[in-house]
């Protein structure tokens, strides 16, 4: 045991560094307004208050931001999972003339950041009257989530043995029936990973939403948070309170699901 002291020491320092900014934000969020601009370093505030939280919840559009984000996230995840599950199955199970070109296209898409395509996408969405609508954002998010989910699920469906469906079809199920009743139930974990990936992407996205959403009542929470932090002087406490309220559920979900998420990422990367 004695030999391990230095290991614990290093890990303690690393853990401290990794949670320090989080602790700071929590500390700022419960600090009363007149003590925000202390120029000396204090981690644990001497006087605490909940006024920042009550102000964020009542005076800003916090809940409307959350609602917007939730709507966009759920829609993106549903589109991502539903469309990509069928497409991935089709690509995984059938040989057809343009298959390999399709695979290259999907892989290439993953390498391109959205920013590169954002300008033409903006003009297209403008033409479709989708600027400043939720659908516009959902559509733009699908640029990243769809190819990734297809690739991920295709990799998983490849590992599901074909004989299972053949058996099901011998027993009288249709092609769709065997997909629906045999393959999909078996792939729940990978469907969950695809969903989780879409959710984290859409929930945390900032840049695309900044371009597409223009009126403040449609803002998602990252846009709202930036507004709060933008004028540093007056609303630092509010920003901190909003950050803490937003991050805690996300972090719980993430820490709970990180193992799954990681498997998905590595599956995607090894294949990609």
């Amino acid at each position, binding site marked *: 045991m004695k030999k391990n002291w230095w290991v614990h020491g*290093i*890990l303690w320092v*690393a*853990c401290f560094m*990794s949670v*320090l*900014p*989080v602790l*700071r934000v929590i500390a700022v969020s419960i600090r009363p307004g007149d003590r925000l*601009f202390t120029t*000396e*370093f204090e981690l644990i505030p001497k006087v605490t208050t909940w006024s920042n939280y009550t102000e964020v919840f009542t005076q800003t559009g916090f809940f409307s931001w959350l609602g917007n984000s939730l709507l966009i996230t759920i829609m993106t995840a549903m589109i991502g999972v539903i*469309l990509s599950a*069928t*497409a991935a199955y*089709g690509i995984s199970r059938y040989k057809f003339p343009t298959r390999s070109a*399709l695979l290259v*296209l999907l892989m290439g*898409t993953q*390498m391109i*950041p959205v*920013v*590169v*395509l*954002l*300008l*033409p*996408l*903006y003009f297209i969405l*403008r*033409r*479709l*009257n989708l*600027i400043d*609508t939720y659908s516009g954002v959902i*559509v733009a998010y699908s640029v990243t989530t*769809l*190819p990734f989910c297809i690739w991920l699920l295709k990799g998983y469906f490849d590992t599901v043995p074909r004989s299972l469906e053949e058996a099901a079809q011998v027993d009288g199920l*249709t092609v*769709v*029936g065997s997909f629906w009743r045999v393959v999909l139930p078996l792939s729940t974990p990978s469907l969950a990973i695809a969903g989780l990936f879409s959710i984290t992407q859409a929930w945390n996205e*900032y*840049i695309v939403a900044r371009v597409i959403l*223009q009126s403040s009542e449609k803002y998602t929470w990252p846009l709202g*948070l*930036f507004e709060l932090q933008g004028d540093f002087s007056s609303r*630092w406490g509010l*920003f*901190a309170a909003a*950050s803490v309220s937003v991050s805690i559920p*996300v*972090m719980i979900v*993430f*820490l709970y699901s*990180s193992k799954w998420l*990681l498997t998905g990422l*590595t599956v995607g*990367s*090894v294949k*990609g």
Partner: protein
Amino acid sequence: MDSLAAVTQVGLLLAFTAAVIAAVEVALFVFIYRYQSRFYWPLVLGMALPLAYGAAKVFGKGAVAAPDDLSVVADPTFWESLSLTWGGGTFLGVLGAGLFFKTTIKGRYGVPAMMIAPAMLFVSLLVVFPFFFELRLAFANLNLYSIGRWIQGEPLGFVGIDNFINVFTSSPLQTATFWELFLRTILWTFINISFHVAFGLGLALLLNRPIRGRAIYRTLLIVPWAIPQVVAVLAWRGEFHPQFGMVNQVLNMFGVSSVNWWSDPVPIFISCCIVNIWLGIPFMMIVFLGGLQSIPKTLYEAAEIDGASIIKQFLEVTVPMLKPVVIPSVTLGTIWTFNNINVIYLMTGQDGGNESADILVSALYKSAFTYSRYSYSAAFALVIFGILMGLTMMWMRVSGGTSRGVAK
């Protein structure tokens, strides 16, 4: 242009969103047709009603106006868009179900075509078409002054490769040149990835040892990954505030004078690097930890019997066994870091901000949406795309080479 544009618009919008619902409904209709056929026609009818409502709304008098001016923003009501998409989805769903029964029996490619078509429609509308549109834009002369005329129907025009020449000769921002941004991007990627790998590997090695409280350490160490990136970056931006931020306060405690992190060229770049390094370590750590745990213990035992020192064991057993994990994750990390616009954009402030930390992608964003140089940005985007493709191909060759080496 008016009526035609309105009809194409509506048509595209319909096809777009309806494709999604159609995918759900194909499955639903097929299922019901197959197993619960008495509900089929009532369901079709019930779902087609919104289509009638939506069509009446859209093709009725003065329903949709073409956006002839950038300030006009469409605002369809919730029920209108719902009925439109739902109705369109129904239509396509019925069509798809019908097609399904026709093709499963006869056609060879019916099933895969149906399964892949909705997603491919999406991908082509969102990726392939924009790409070619961008290519077209790059050879046109579209900017803040000419966009009004373009929207009113004037053709795009053709200026040859002027935009591409301009990318290399004039600044995408106000002063920073392309080459400056390019070098900074390479530096940015290199610094970040080396720190991610070094710290990630170090922590993974420590966590791989049988120590008490490993789960707690692991949980605390992935906090930077778990916290939403926007929150983390904005919080760090506050901590780098020259007067009230934690970083300068700590520096002052050690007797170092305050650094102007928000505006001085070198400090602002360093602060961006610190933030991104902090954000990226957990991912590498977890990936490496997974790799380390999959190395069989017997290899180390054998090495120990052969008298290999700890360092020798690390070099001869750990490093080669870790290679298949390191290469894809470093590739992925490089592409992510190269494309990381969030950290730079949020750290340097909105709308222009400080240019001394900008990398290629953030400069692209600013030149398109802050400075409104549309054709120029399209050319710039294609140049960045080319660099990315080169990078990817290089990595594929490297990783392909090593995996062949391992296989032998």
